[in-house]
């Protein structure tokens, strides 16, 4: 029987690399910021939640845009952009896609930047209420290593990487008695946001089955 877990902390992120870096497009950031600001007006953005970044490496400069009520953040830089949303569940997928689409469309329209590879990922902290988190992780500890000491293993981590996919399994550094799972995939520029969402959902279902966990009803 699957172990019931709560997910008190999670995030989804999408990093989009541009076909090629475009520094010129960032010469006049004000037009870009205004355009994204207007596009997100349905979600009540505030001027003070926009943070221009003009220090660090050129790839780290640009602007951050946050919607605190939705726990959404956008970063737009000259080489890539990044979107995150915290504590979103699948019931919020439609809204998340709408915010993402609005922000990205406005940015592309003004900057004329073309998007390349997209890396999408979800991180979840799985907190069992009735057992130690190591019960979830224990099956993934190599027995050869576990037998090196008499005492039980306290925590462990596994990172598995393929050409276009990566899975990280670890103890949680954020929550008491919780495991951390992150699954990421690389998508082509031609894949739609809906395709990406569908694939991530399948990945989550597959991994939860492998881990033997099921999300408890709130």
């Amino acid at each position, binding site marked *: 029987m699957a172990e019931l877990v*709560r997910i*008190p*902390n999670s*995030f989804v*992120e999408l990093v989009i690399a541009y076909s090629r870096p475009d520094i010129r497009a960032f010469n006049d950031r004000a037009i870009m910021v205004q355009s994204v600001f207007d596009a997100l007006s349905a979600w009540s953005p505030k001027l003070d939640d926009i943070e221009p970044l003009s220090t660090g490496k050129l790839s780290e400069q640009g602007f951050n845009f*946050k919607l*605190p*009520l939705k*726990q959404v*953040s956008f970063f737009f830089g000259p080489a890539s952009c990044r979107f*995150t*949303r*915290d504590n979103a569940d699948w019931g919020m997928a439609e809204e998340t896609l709408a915010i993402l689409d609005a922000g990205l469309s406005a940015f592309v329209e003004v900057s004329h930047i073309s998007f390349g590879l997209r890396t999408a990922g979800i*991180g979840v*902290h799985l*907190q069992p*209420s*009735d*057992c*130690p988190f190591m019960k979830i992780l224990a099956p993934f500890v190599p027995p050869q290593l576990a037998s090196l000491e008499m005492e*039980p293993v*306290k*925590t*462990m*981590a596994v*990172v598995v990487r393929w050409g276009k996919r990566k899975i*990280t399994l*670890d*103890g*949680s*550094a*954020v*929550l*008491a*008695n919780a495991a*951390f799972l*992150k699954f990421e995939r690389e998508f082509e520029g031609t894949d739609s946001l809906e395709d990406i969402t569908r694939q991530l959902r399948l990945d989550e279902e597959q991994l939860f089955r492998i881990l033997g966990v099921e999300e408890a009803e*709130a």
Partner: protein
Amino acid sequence: MNAYQECQTSGNQWPPLVSPMLLEESRSASEHKFPPILDCRRAPQGGTIFDDLEKRMVRYAAEYRAVLQEIQRHFMMPVDSSVTAFLTDNRAIPSMLLEAIPHLKTYFGADAVFSLRVSIDGPGSHILYAVVKWPGKVCDVRSALQRFDHEWWLRRAGQAAGFLTFTYELV
């Protein structure tokens, strides 16, 4: 407890989401306890006592968020915001909980799992329970709790003014 050094969050620090009603209740309560200062007295340096107030508020909020995050690393919290709201209303308790962590681990074991829950006492006052989830024998946890109480907690319990109780739950 993690083993691999990788960022496990989005990197954003969101302020706690508080419903407008809760905010209003909290404001009313604090206005009741601390009536507004009307005379805006001058500080010795010439500035008003409200100078840098916003900056200080932001700093305090960030510090408080960090404390809450640290508590979440050691104690399981309920789905609802009851514990967070309790800790916000009783600002002395979070630091006491953090102080208790190494002692809890000493008496109940480094791998013991702890959780927090809020209960309403008879006359309507709230009490925070820090609960050790104990998979072993009841006599062992009772003995550990007794030693924890006698050797560490009872000397400090007065500071919590009855708002914090350490107990156990058999699992």
